[in-house]
């Protein structure tokens, strides 16, 4: 297997004595779509927070392409090609959907121009194409705070995609999305990831989504990895079925 894009080694994090990571290590390789599943409160989101520089572990390290990013800020890690979509969408609520997208595109292109306006024909087309991809092309001029929760979630993902990342971290991409929209969204997302050769790691509670789309599954429980492997292997594990799938 190729060298991992992202490696987290021997991570230890605790909140008020509760261990969110207890010496666990993970690695994600180029082209993978790695799912992380586990009970609520097991530390899955904390893992994403560590990998994106939002939380610093007590010990352990995070490597991106072999370079230590453990102490870097989310901004510095984002500029190295790691984008994130959040469990609770993080949007510019007072701005239009298209402005959220164009600002993300501008952030990638280089923000430091005061000569050109944010809205250029090229940027607008690119933003619209991404919005169409996630099914939000009918909402381009709406103020993002007026979107239903599921659409806010989709916009959050589209904003992350606009950064043209090499690695995308998704925290429960289908939560808040209606059952009817869930699989079309995942199909669109997978298509975008393949087209743009984006490696992805996603935390997910919907086991149907995980079984259908993940190339590898990692089961996180009480700060440790309980099981790891292909979806059929992991879901065939009796311990996982009893302790994770049953409660997920």
């Amino acid at each position, binding site marked *: 297997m190729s060298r991992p894009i992202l490696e987290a080694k021997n991570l230890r994090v605790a909140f008020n004595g509760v261990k969110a990571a207890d010496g666990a290590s993970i690695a994600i390789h180029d082209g993978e779509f790695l799912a992380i599943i586990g009970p609520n409160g097991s530390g899955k989101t904390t893992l994403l927070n560590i990998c*994106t520089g939002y939380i610093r572990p007590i010990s352990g390290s995070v490597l991106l392409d072999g370079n230590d990013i453990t102490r870097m*800020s*989310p*901004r*510095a890690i*984002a*500029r190295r090609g790691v*984008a*994130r979509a959040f469990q609770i969408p*993080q*949007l*510019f*609520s*007072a*701005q239009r959907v298209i*402005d959220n997208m*164009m*600002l*993300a595109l*501008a*952030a*990638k292109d280089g*923000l*430091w*121009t*005061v*000569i*050109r*306006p*944010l*809205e250029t024909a090229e940027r607008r087309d690119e933003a619209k194409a991404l919005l169409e991809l996630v099914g939000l092309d009918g909402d381009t001029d709406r103020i993002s705070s007026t979107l239903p929760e599921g659409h806010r979630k989709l916009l959050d993902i589209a*904003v992350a995609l606009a*950064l043209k990342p090499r690695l995308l971290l998704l925290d429960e991409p289908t939560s808040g999305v209606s059952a009817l929209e869930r699989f079309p969204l995942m199909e669109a997302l997978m298509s975008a990831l393949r087209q743009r050769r984006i490696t992805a790691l996603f935390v997910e509670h919907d086991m149907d989504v995980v079984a259908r789309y993940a190339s590898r599954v990692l089961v996180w429980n009480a700060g440790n990895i309980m099981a790891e492997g292909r979806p059929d292997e992991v879901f065939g594990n009796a311990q996982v079925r009893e302790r994770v799938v049953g409660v997920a």
Partner: protein
Amino acid sequence: MRIILAAAAVVMLAALAFAAPWLQFVLTLAIAKGFAALGVAVLLRAGLISIGHAMFFAASAYGAAFLARAGINDLGLLLILSVLVSALIGAIAGSFLVRYRAIFFAMLNLAVSMVFYALCAKLYGVTGGTDGLPVPIPAVFGIVFAEPVFKSILFYLSLTLMVLVGLAVHRYLDSPLGHALSAVHSNEIRLEYLGIPVWAVLLIAYTISAALAGLGGSIAGFAIGRVVPDFAFWTASGHLVLIAVLGGIGGVPGAFIGALFLELLHSAAVTVTDAWNMFVGITLIVVIMFMPQGIYGLFERKEAQSS
């Protein structure tokens, strides 16, 4: 439509000042305060309220007085250098002030400006104390004009600068950097995850806002012919916030509309009663209750309805 209205307003101001030269002083002061209020409005876009921007207004006027005393006697050069002085002070103060938010940002700006005020008032040997310093009439392209002519030139120059600087600020606010500034108010976490340094976005905005306040201050210094510590007093900073809110922060013209409205209201009210502040207070209550987007918001609403 908005451009036609703005152009008509500028032409009307120019014609008004031509027809009634006694209004030139009031209008020049209004434009000067409009620049400073625009600086405050820039920061308001990021949700940051500065109750200390009169410091930059005063710093620039003092800068013009010191530079004139040092032998620089050209209006253009004095304006540029005094604005650079306020921008430099803005960059230095901003480098630590932009780390704070909400009430802490407002209070720290107030505190820094009051330290500046105290220095201006107490360092008599340098600043002239509460008497202040004279800002002499400078030459314009090498020619020294009589006071009435200079005041007319200053007014038309201020009007021209209002258009040019206004367009430049509009361009900045419409740029990715300007949109990032507004986004600070919405979601700093997302900005960081887009790889955008919030600190740098705010520091640039703070420096621009200080420069705008400085431009207003030096114009006011030339118009009045003197700079005193009261230029930096906290009530003057509050006055700038009042103008920005009254005019509206939805667009660049808001600050100038607010300043013109308030100066003209003040000029009219003082002829009727000493309690002119009461008129201003009532006006502010009416605007906040019925026009939350300020006076400029009315134009925007009308335009949205007609489109």
